């Protein structure tokens, strides 16, 4: 049986006139890597700050480990590891001292603390930077320090708020692998990001939010099944006539096309061999085409279809044919 670790019910948070969270509800179960995906300003950080009782909210109910969360719930806080969106370390303390400081807020026994700190150091690969000051660390290393400070005490629940901002792909992959490892070691993870690839890559369940509302929730396959689109075909072609475009939209499974003068986008729902049928049309009309892509739906398409706008710049599993 999976226990609910975090339960948020009908959370409402206003900043003056702005409604940052609008009746937001969420249930996160033990052992999950839960992804909270949303564009900038959608309320991810606000949700987390409310969860941690840093922010006072207007309405709603938050329970962690089955207990109501309050600012003085020190027993609960002891079991949470938090990695904030803004790096929160002492600039005047070294890497080791920083990790030791934060770990010491949770673990009082010195020997045990030392062991935990060293494990965190090893985990984040900061071993050779122990005597470095945060200012001397690169962005990626700094993020790793931020993570080390959050996980050294081996929390049961780890909350990461966009831990990979400004991190190069290599470091990012290391961080993501690390998060999965922590999860395998038993921690429940809450992960927020606006990088859908990351969320797709590691999260077992995902909630997509926009403007303070949860617009969809489920595993990534469940989410993708929610939408009509199953395949998006892009063809680079110049001076396409209306007639040919009409012919393409008549093809089975095609429900929409877009053309900007250089690139034709064909949206398909279901069916197989859609790409071949589209290319057949071009061949019969002897139209020269440039590059051709076929993409499976991404979380961006899910977001796009539900909200009518892009989550972020499009990217996905692309197959280049030419």
């Amino acid at each position, binding site marked *: 049986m999976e226990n609910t670790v975090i339960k948020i019910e009908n959370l409402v948070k206003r900043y003056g006139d702005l409604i940052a969270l609008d009746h937001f509800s969420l249930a996160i179960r033990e052992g999950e890597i839960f992804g909270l995906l949303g564009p900038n300003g959608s309320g991810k950080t606000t949700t987390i700050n409310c969860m941690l009782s840093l*922010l006072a909210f207007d309405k709603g109910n938050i329970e962690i480990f089955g207990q109501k969360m309050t600012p003085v719930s020190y027993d609960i*806080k002891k079991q949470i590891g*938090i990695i904030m969106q*803004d790096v*929160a370390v*002492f600039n005047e303390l070294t890497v080791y001292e920083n990790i030791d400081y934060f770990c*010491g*807020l949770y673990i009082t026994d010195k020997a045990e603390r030392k062991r935990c700190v060293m494990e965190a150091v090893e985990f984040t690969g900061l071993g050779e930077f122990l005597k470095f000051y945060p200012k001397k660390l690169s962005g990626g290393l700094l993020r790793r320090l931020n993570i080390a400070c959050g996980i050294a005490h081996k929390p049961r629940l780890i909350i990461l708020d966009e831990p990979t901002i400004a991190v190069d792909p290599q470091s990012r992959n290391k961080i993501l692998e690390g998060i999965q490892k922590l999860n395998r070691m038993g921690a429940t993870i809450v992960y927020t990001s606006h990088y859908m690839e990351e969320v797709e890559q590691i999260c077992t369940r995902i909630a997509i939010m926009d403007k303070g509302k949860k617009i969809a929730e489920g595993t990534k396959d469940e989410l993708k099944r929610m939408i009509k689109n199953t395949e998006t075909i892009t063809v680079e072609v110049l001076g396409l006539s209306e007639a040919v475009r009409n012919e393409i939209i008549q093809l089975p499974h095609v429900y929409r096309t877009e053309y900007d003068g250089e690139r034709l986008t064909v949206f398909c729902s279901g069916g197989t061999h859609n790409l071949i049928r589209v290319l057949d049309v071009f061949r019969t009309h002897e139209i020269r085409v440039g590059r051709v892509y076929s993409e499976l739906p991404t979380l961006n398409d899910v977001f796009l279809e539900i909200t009518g706008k892009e989550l972020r710049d499009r990217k996905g599993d692309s197959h280049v044919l030419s």
Partner: protein
Amino acid sequence: MFFHDLKYFILSQLKTKNLIFWLLLFPIALGCFFRIAFGEIYGNLTQTGPIPVAVVEEKDNPVFRSVLESMKGLEEQFLDPVDLDEATALERLKNNTVEGILYVNDKLRLTVAEDGLEETMLKKFVETYTLRETILTDAALTHPEKMEAAAAALSKDCHSVASVSVTTGNTNNFTQYFYNLIAMTALYGSLLGMQICFNNQANLSALGARKSCSPISKAVSLAADLTGAVLLQFLCMAVCVTFLVFVLKIDLGNRLPLVYLAACLGGMTGVSIGFFVGSIGTAGQRVRTGICNAVVLLFCFFSGLMVGNMKALVARFVPWLNEINPAAVISDSIYCLNLYSDYRRFGEKLAAMLLISLLFCILGIIMTRRKQYADI
């Protein structure tokens, strides 16, 4: 948890260049600057030998005689009197071998040729002598054994009274600048105090937010950081006073331990002021640091750090300001320590410092104790 937090607060602050600068280097540099600027006067004052003075006896005055006699027995000679007739005396005054002529009659009269430090001291001597004449007469006639002590007191007063009036004849002297320097250093402790707020308030820094998510209670954390800030400030004050006294050789009086005490208490006042300023409003770190600096300098301005006779002006026009201006209270405490032989006023100033510290600490705690914020 308390000691863990305390340890790292102190460690992190010790490594903060900004604080080291304002709390250690800046006061030391300013001290050196003052020392150089006032160096000449200072040298004159401390190295004044006995002042040569002609004594023209118009009428026999046994009291004055015995005062002169007793003063000769003192370790530190204040006057170097020579008995002369008036004509010779005037001549010597002209060619500067004496600084002044004391006419001895029922009363003392003084003639000097020019204005200067020695002349001022002579004037003070005559004034003080006249003021104390009854006591001196009494001692000379009925308790000759007390004569030495009375003369010593007179001589000492003349020294200190004269040094008080060196510059422009008002109550400011250059030592006041150093008292104010101590006050300024003490109040720069506010930067430390402010750091406590930055480190603990979730709405002021990521660090504060992070700390608020951890299981250390705010009360423990505030207590630890306050303790750390005060201890650090004690250290800074000790360095400052030690530097003034033992390196720059500024005379802060002979009750040095009490000067350290006053400086440390002043430092505590500074920390608490910073803690309070840091806890109010919603402004960011930079704005707060700016406000804090401005407040400190304003306090010091009214206490006379920049313009020497400011405190006298304040005393004349808004006397209550000197009682509550922390900079004035701190510098006055040391001033009182060296001006009065009893401890009443010194004690009052210390009490005022404690009161101000307590007030601001309590206000600061009331402001920072909240744990949830409407926006971060």
